[in-house]
């Protein structure tokens, strides 16, 4: 479908009728290639136009023919778009609620659909966790939908087969009672899926059910099983805590709970009424939580457990492990604070902590009164009786001969010692349901392509158990089954279509117009279905043995960019730099600068790490704030699946990970002498080098922060950091005559955690290209919005800084400030960047010839230049001599009518090579609201018009893409002319400061200085990091 145009004749092809298109041999060939599954059916119909439209109607919409492709009304059959459905307007986007199950927790989303194409994902405001915000992964999921590497059919032995053949085969070969059958499933919160699981187990009583997720918090589940009995999960409401102690729990970092946690934490970070919460963390390497913590200490996971025992000793009188003097001092201050907070305290333990620590933490939370306040629990509807290790034993013993893998990718991420990939290959019957033909698919006999969640009916439970219902936004691009559909098929149920399955879970009924059902589908959330409780904790906590760390400790963590590897083929996620390391396209062994110099390595030097019998070679990346003697390895990279994005990205460290543990002791860690290019978007400068010192010198000016005490004493501290002498501009400033609005933005550095959701949202909203590792290495990344990260160090006592003593991590979103005296505008020779009267520094792509002078004169360097047509250049990992692939010269500038192009926001131009681009304050969103408001205004009476001559907009009506996703609410956009607007008040507030004010550029974006809340408010600039 996508390339109907690729006929031989030159120039534009105009079709007189659809019949003409359908009849052409080129088209038929394309159909065969694109939809091998349905093609025979389609082609058999010959030139019967009506029949053709019935089948292809949905897909035709994708090619821009304007056929409504979205299956959103309850009727099953799809009708030709002869009559426009009521309420739809071509070109006006519509929004549908659905949900995205990630790590066993459903994220409520609202998806924007443009003429049948889903193009953007937003948070669902009615969803309890989301409240309108999303994380980076959810934002990026839209790109996965259009991933050209997605599997497009059913394969058997890696050869194309069909779903019918699969069903037939499975019916005859799958044992009726399920003996010798195992299902290996990923985590899911879906009630329908649970129902299907039970149905399957009922139809095959002898089957084995195994759930596996490489990064699931197994320790917590086991700990809570000790504490309460049964399957439990903790639900935190961080907004209710004033003292939060994290034991290696990256609560603000990537993961299914990032959005609600960030919102809860950010709720009390702005120092209003002189109060703030306080975040303590003990962790091995700098996480997002650690960089935002008020008090932080770096230590190995084992020492973190020791800290846990110390808290236990102080609060419930358990035995404490011996702490070092530094640890003891830190723990004493923390425990005092925790005790002081009483029921407003909160203790959180991370996945790296053993089960007994989780049990202990549950008990401490109960004792201090946090349980029922900021901590509660919810039961899990899953079957965890059999573990993947036991499954491996069963396979080895030939007790299991058929394995059905639903989702997940165990051949890649199962514990190393199992050799799971080899085991799968030995099986006579194995099935893998997956979006991609990945490592597990290759090892299995059958691969069944999975429908993307945006293409399927789905449901799920949010963290507190609230039920979400999801509807498809588009007919499956490549058909495919949902996990529930597969299970229904395997169980031999009568109904196997996704919609009916989900509907039946919620009571079924024949009436498709049932208002309750329709409301639930519309809202995406079933109200009042939360199920949280606080059962009493079993007081007999297993004693914890704290072992000495011997040698180098290897700690694993899910990658903040691609999680456990599941998002590896997503170009946005690969290219968006990790907030702490600023690394793109790869993972690296993170170690402390001291450990790195001990090993004699610097950034990019390859290390060989040996754990048990396995060896992995991976590039080193020293990061301040990492505990000495620890090597942190992010999981998820080094995929062997041949995706065009993930091929060659990073190193697979799963081989070192045994028994799903989060840390291991390395037998050896040594430098190989080789080097590997790491594409970081910020350069590393040694603290003793000129640029390193220069950075430290100017940091207090650029990133202003103070402790809560300082703020309470001097509320205006941020405005008195630098001396600014305002000078007159040599040019007359008249561009704002007749302005109706005065756009402005603010970034609250106090609540921004650097979660990257805004960066991903900007990618999705503004059709920003990814450029590939080679281009990032050259410094040509295209993100309009970036997160700047600086490490502040403590003074070394004689005018310099001590690179081993991290005092704070500064995280600062940076994008075009829309300066009123914009330096970029006065140097452009062709007037391609000019101001509008409302204060937007606009970029006229058509007029730009690409002298790049504007970027040179931009003090923030937020302008991005299209060095190539990045949409026709596939991302490369290293640049060859010619820098582009041969097909670069024949493709269309926008990438052509490819799947990728379907994601484009139709309201935003796709930029060609040779033009500059940058943040527009989401001008398309501003226009949308302005037009709507003005349309209402013109209908008013003259008297009413006279009252509001400038057509003022409702504050908050315009929401930029970054503002919309921000879970912390750190980004605010609005009209400064409206003195009552949030933005006006923020710009007037104590903490507001203008960056590089001394240049007299008059930024429209202001920053709100960061406040920190260390125990002793006068120590250091940003809490005491050690």
């Amino acid at each position, binding site marked *: 479908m996508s390339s109907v145009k690729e006929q031989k004749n030159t120039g534009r092809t105009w079709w007189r009728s659809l019949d003409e298109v359908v009849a052409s041999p080129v088209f038929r060939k394309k159909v065969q290639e694109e939809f091998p599954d349905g093609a025979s059916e389609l082609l058999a119909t010959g030139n019967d136009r009506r029949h053709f439209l019935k089948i292809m109607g949905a897909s035709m919409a994708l090619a821009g023919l304007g056929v409504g492709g979205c299956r959103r009304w309850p009727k099953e059959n799809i009708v030709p778009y002869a009559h426009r459905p009521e309420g739809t307007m071509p070109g006006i986007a519509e929004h549908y609620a659905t949900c995205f199950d990630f790590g066993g927790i459903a994220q409520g989303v609202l998806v924007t659909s443009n003429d049948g194409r889903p193009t953007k994902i937003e948070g669902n405001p009615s969803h309890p966790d989301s409240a309108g915000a999303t994380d980076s992964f959810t934002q990026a999921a839209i790109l996965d939908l259009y991933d050209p590497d997605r599997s497009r059919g059913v394969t058997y032995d890696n050869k194309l087969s069909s779903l019918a053949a699969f069903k037939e085969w499975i019916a005859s070969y799958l044992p009726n009672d399920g003996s010798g059958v195992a299902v290996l499933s990923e985590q899911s919160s879906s009630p329908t899926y649970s129902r299907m699981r039970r149905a399957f187990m009922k139809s095959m009583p002898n089957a084995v059910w195994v759930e596996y997720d490489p990064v699931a918090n197994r320790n917590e589940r086991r700990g809570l099983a000790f504490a309460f009995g049964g399957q439990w999960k903790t639900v935190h409401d961080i907004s209710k805590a004033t003292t939060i102690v994290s034991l290696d729990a990256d609560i603000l970092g990537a993961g299914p709970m990032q959005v609600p946690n960030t919102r809860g934490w950010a709720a009390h970070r702005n120092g209003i009424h002189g109060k703030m919460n306080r975040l303590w963390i003990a962790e091995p390497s700098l996480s997002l939580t650690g960089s935002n913590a008020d008090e932080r200490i770096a230590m190995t996971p084992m020492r973190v457990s020791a800290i846990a025992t110390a808290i236990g000793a102080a609060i419930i009188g358990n035995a404490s492990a011996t702490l070092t003097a530094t640890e003891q001092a830190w723990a004493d201050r923390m425990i005092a604070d925790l005790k002081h907070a009483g029921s407003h305290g909160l203790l959180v333990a991370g996945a790296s902590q053993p089960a007994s620590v989780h049990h202990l933490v549950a008990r401490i939370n109960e004792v201090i009164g946090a349980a029922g306040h900021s901590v509660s629990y919810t039961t899990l509807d899953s079957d965890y009786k059999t573990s993947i290790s036991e499954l491996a034993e069963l396979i080895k013993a030939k007790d299991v001969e058929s394995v059905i893998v639903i989702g997940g990718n165990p051949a890649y991420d199962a514990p190393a010692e199992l050799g799971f990939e080899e085991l799968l290959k030995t099986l006579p019957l194995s099935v893998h349901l997956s979006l991609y033909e990945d490592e597990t698919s290759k090892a299995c006999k059958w691969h069944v392509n999975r429908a993307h969640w945006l293409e399927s009916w789905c449901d799920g439970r949010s963290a507190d158990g609230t039920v979400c219902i999801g509807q498809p936004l588009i007919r499956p691009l490549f058909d495919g089954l949902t996990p529930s559909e597969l299970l229904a098929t395997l169980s031999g149920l009568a109904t196997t279509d996704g919609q009916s399955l989900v509907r039946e879970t919620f009571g079924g009924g024949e009436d498709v117009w049932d208002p309750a059902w329709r409301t639930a589908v519309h809202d995406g959330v079933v109200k009042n279905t939360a199920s949280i409780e606080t059962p009493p904790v079993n007081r007999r906590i297993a004693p914890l043995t704290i072992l000495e760390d011997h040698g180098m400790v290897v700690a694993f963590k899910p990658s903040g960019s691609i999680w456990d590897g599941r998002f590896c083929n997503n170009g946005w996620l690969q290219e968006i730099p990790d907030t702490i390391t600023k690394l793109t396209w790869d993972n690296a062994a993170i170690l402390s600068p001291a450990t790195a110099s001990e090993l004699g390595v610097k950034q990019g030097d390859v290390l060989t790490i040996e754990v048990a019998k396995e060896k992995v070679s991976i590039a080193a990346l020293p990061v301040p704030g990492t505990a000495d003697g620890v090597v942190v390895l992010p999981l998820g990279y080094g995929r062997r699946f041949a995706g065009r994005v993930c091929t060659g990205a990073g190193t697979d460290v799963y081989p070192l990970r045994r028994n799903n543990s989060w840390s291991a002791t390395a037998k050896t860690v040594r430098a190989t002498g080789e080097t590997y290019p790491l594409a970081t978007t910020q350069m590393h400068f040694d603290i003793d080098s000129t*640029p390193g010192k220069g950075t430290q010198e*100017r940091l207090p000016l650029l990133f202003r922060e103070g402790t809560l005490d300082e703020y309470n004493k001097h509320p205006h501290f941020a405005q008195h950091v630098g001396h600014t002498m305002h000078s007159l501009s040599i040019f007359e400033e008249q561009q704002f005559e007749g302005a109706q609005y005065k756009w402005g933005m603010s970034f609250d550095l106090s609540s921004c955690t650097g979660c990257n959701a805004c960066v991903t949202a900007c990618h999705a909203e503004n059709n920003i290209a990814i450029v590939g590792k080679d281009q990032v290495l050259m410094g040509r990344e295209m993100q309009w919005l970036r997160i700047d990260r600086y490490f502040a160090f403590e003074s070394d006592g004689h005018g310099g800084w001590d690179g081993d003593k991290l005092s704070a991590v500064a995280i600062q979103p940076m994008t075009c400030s829309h300066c009123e005296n914009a330096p970029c*505008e*006065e140097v452009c020779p062709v007037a391609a960047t000019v101001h509008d009267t409302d204060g937007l520094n606009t970029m006229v792509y058509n007029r730009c010839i*690409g002298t*790049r002078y504007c*970027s040179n004169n931009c003090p923030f360097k937020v302008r991005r230049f299209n060095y190539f*047509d990045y949409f026709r250049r596939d991302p490369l990992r290293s640049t060859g001599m010619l820098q582009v692939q041969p097909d670069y010269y024949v493709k269309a500038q926008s990438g052509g009518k490819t799947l990728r192009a379907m994601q484009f926001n139709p309201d935003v131009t796709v930029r060609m090579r040779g*033009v500059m681009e940058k943040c527009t304050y989401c001008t398309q969103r501003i226009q949308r609201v302005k037009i709507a408001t003005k349309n209402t205004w013109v209908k008013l009476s003259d008297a009413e018009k006279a009252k509001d001559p400038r057509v003022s907009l409702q504050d908050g009506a315009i929401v930029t893409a970054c503002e919309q996703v921000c879970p912390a609410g750190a980004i605010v956009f609005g009209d400064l002319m409206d003195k009552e607007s949030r933005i006006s008040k923020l710009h007037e507030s104590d903490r507001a400061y203008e960056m590089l004010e001394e240049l007299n550029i008059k930024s429209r974006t202001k920053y709100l200085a960061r406040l920190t809340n260390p125990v002793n408010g006068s120590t250091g600039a940003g809490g005491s990091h050690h």
Partner: protein
Amino acid sequence: MTTLQSNQFCNTNEDPRNRPQLIRNHTDFGSVTDDILKGNDAARPPKSWWFALAISFSMMSMLGVLIGYLIVTGVGVWGNNNPVMWGYPIVNFVFWVGIGHAGTLISAILFLFRQKWRTAINRFAEAMTIFAVICAGTFPGIHVGRVWLAYWLFPIPNQMDMWPQFRSPLLWDVFAVGTYFTVSLLFWYLGMIPDLATMRDRATTKVKQIAYGVFAVGWRGSMRHWHRYERAYLLLAALATPLVLSVHSVVSFDFAVAQLPGWHTTIFPPYFVAGAIFSGFAMVMTLAIPARELWGLKNFITMRHLENMCKIILFTGSLVGFAYSMEFFIAWYSGELYESFTFINRAFGPYGWAYWIMVSCNVVTPQIFWFKKARNSIVIMFTASLFVNVGMWFERFVIVVTSLANDFLPSSWGIFEPTWVDVMTFFGSFGLFMTFFLLFIRYLPVLAIAELKAVMPAADPHGHGHSYNEMTPETDAQAALAEEDE
């Protein structure tokens, strides 16, 4: 007439009685013409010319291919990045414009100041100017992202009713370089008319006759022609003089008007002009030394000429050195955080190597010309001129790249690495330059024949051969001295 001792002749002595003649071994006008046009008259140019042309032409062709590759692929083939949005192309532009400076200086300013020695070098210095400006003009044209729209830089009436943006220094550049090129070309051509007529008259083939005839625009050498010619030449010289100062001042505005630390300094205009003259003279020297060997022009471009150029190089080099130190002083004196960092970073940061190459080539190397021995050694002055060329290229590299690489926000700091296309395009521009230059020495009068004759003793209408030594044939002692110098 007293007998002169050979040691009394001194190239640095400006007492006219004690210096060698501007033209040696010639007493009559005819032999001057013959000697200068020897290369042009020869039926075949020497093998070395062919050899040089073959190399230059292939380099020029490579430039063409690279430009084609650039246009179809995108400016990403260069190493430019964010923050270093301007890399080699702009460095090369400023480098070539700077080289193109000496021509006008020699032809206009030295003419107005009646520096007679300029006549031996002005023609090819002007030619060098034209070719260098062509090379320079290539770069801004191809460095823009959408080359096919580069004409939008010119104020051409259009359906959009859109003017260029007059506040932009890049636009001023277009005007400044455009004016400079036009005036230099006119000046060069005007000065060449009498010589073109000479070549027309000596032409042995019909083609040459017609070609030179057309360009000689009917020059017959009448008194009236000479009178008009000299007026026009003087006027053009007066017009061109401000351009010497304006072009590079305007080029420096590209940087000085921006607010980037390291660019935003008021010293830039004079500093750029001094640097341009410096590099221009170095390039004249680099070309003159081989050219006088190849084309047998030692009698016209004498050691005295070369020595004078050495002195100018010493002077302008020291000016440039002074400017370097003033930049540092002001950076410190201003107390401006970003400004002081930029300069410390230039010298001791990641690009320190480039800075020290610049200083050693531009400030240290010319100091050797304090010594007369150095001023009289072909080897030393040729080497030094090459060093200065290298150093001046690095000066532009340091200014453009280091300022951009580390500006205000450390988060956006980067490092620039040229790609093979950058390097080869730069070499290709030398091919373009040399091809033009080789064609010039073969087909056009390489020295200003008519003007040269005017500085010969025989041209002195008052001397009658008796006033001072310029009127007499060169003495043996003088000749010996001149030989020694070689």
